[in-house]
């Protein structure tokens, strides 16, 4: 409980929000503090005030700061049973639509998006889909667009894919080159990558499916409420919302306008 540092953090976030428009003021504090401590070490500065001076006056430092403020850890078919449930319970609903719009909010470097594209391809639905993959972070979006991931992850991802009910050979979806797995370009034919900030930007379309997983855990309850409102507004009636394994809609502003599709699987359907 370092009172001075808490004040310095508030001032830093205030400065960054007002000058650059990146608003971290309503992020969950405990993990944010850890990340700020990491930045202090990486930048070799002793106080948050010294970091503030640098972030506000040095654009290159801002870029590093932004990347360090968000947690971008992700994986293909993370929580395989989520995808399995999606395949068995949500895909049949989607089959009834002529055209399907999907939003991955907070897609990070894109592993989740390519997983979904593969799933939809195997369900025979991909050609009817348009996927919008957004993140506030330009650097991770560039990686997502490239669709190139570390080759040494492929064993883990193959296991996840199989547990998620994947029915083909996972290796057909990428070519290996040096240490990298380059995913097939046709997988991103129906994906649009763009920058969108859940803390400050508004709704930009209406979707049949929205996935926002492991993003809101970094927000405090006020910002979570804002985002839930935004997602609700952006979801069509009977559209499907998926959140992370340890998140739920309990105590969120629109919880009563959703019905859980399968208990415990973090997939909800908008019912009003």
């Amino acid at each position, binding site marked *: 409980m370092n009172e001075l540092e808490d004040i310095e953090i508030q001032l830093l976030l205030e400065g960054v929000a007002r000058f650059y428009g990146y608003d971290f003021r309503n992020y969950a504090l405990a*993990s944010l503090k850890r990340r700020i401590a990491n930045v202090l070490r990486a930048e070799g500065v002793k106080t948050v005030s010294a970091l503030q001076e640098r972030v506000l006056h040095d654009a290159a430092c801002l870029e590093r700061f932004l990347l360090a403020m968000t947690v971008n850890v992700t994986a293909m078919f993370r929580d395989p049973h989520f995808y399995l449930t999606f395949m068995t319970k949500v895909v049949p609903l989607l089959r009834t639509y002529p055209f399907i719009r999907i939003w991955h909010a907070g897609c990070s470097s894109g592993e989740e998006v390519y997983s979904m594209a593969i799933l939809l391809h195997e369900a025979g639905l991909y050609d009817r889909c348009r996927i919008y993959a957004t993140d506030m972070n330009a650097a991770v979006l560039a990686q997502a667009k490239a669709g190139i991931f570390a080759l040494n992850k492929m064993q883990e991802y193959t296991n996840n894919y199989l547990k998620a009910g994947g029915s083909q050979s996972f290796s057909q979806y990428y070519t290996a080159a040096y240490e990298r797995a380059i995913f097939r370009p046709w997988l991103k034919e129906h994906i649009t990558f763009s920058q969108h900030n859940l803390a400050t930007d508004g709704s930009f379309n209406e979707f049949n499916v929205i996935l926002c997983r492991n993003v809101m*855990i970094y927000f405090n309850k006020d910002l979570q409420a804002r985002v839930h409102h935004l997602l609700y507004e952006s979801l069509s009636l009977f559209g499907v919302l998926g959140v992370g394994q340890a998140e739920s809609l309990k105590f969120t502003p629109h919880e009563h306008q959703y019905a859980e599709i399968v208990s415990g699987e973090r997939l909800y359907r908008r019912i009003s």
Partner: protein
Amino acid sequence: MTFELVVIGASLGGLHAVATLLGGLPGNFGLPVAIVQHRHRESEGALATVLQRASKLPVCDVEDKQAIRSGIVCLAPADYHLLVERDVFALSTEAPVLYSRPSINVLFESAADAYGPQVIGIILTGASADGADGLAAIKAAGGLAVVQDPATAECRVMPEAALESVVADHVLPVPAIATLLTQLGAGELKVAP
């Protein structure tokens, strides 16, 4: 000093130790309990089920921003770090710390930061150095540091690492830790309105 939160870290051999500890707490135990037990990343739910059998208190995997409540035993969910804010739990998927996610250090350091001297930190059996820095942070913030007596631990590496990094207030076998907690928790009950 009145305490407001108990945090427990356990690794190899922890299942038995944590079950014994929880089994020794009364059904009206008056403090919130948060636990990081190192676990496989796909072990969802199973740990809570096993520990619930031993515990008179309700045991659950934490959901993001769940309120911190007395008498409830909260587990770090598989593959997430568990952190403490004032009054709520928070989760993170940050990279593993000392090869662990959940990490004991992450829980303990956030507890020390949010609750200062009102935290009781407990390190149990394990084959890792995780928890040593976290327990030191709790102690530095004025909280109480408790370590399982290494001689009684299924794996003594983790308690020994903790004892190297901090002068513990109590070094005890697990059943005695339960008794200590019960007494400290009861003190808390007396001052409650």
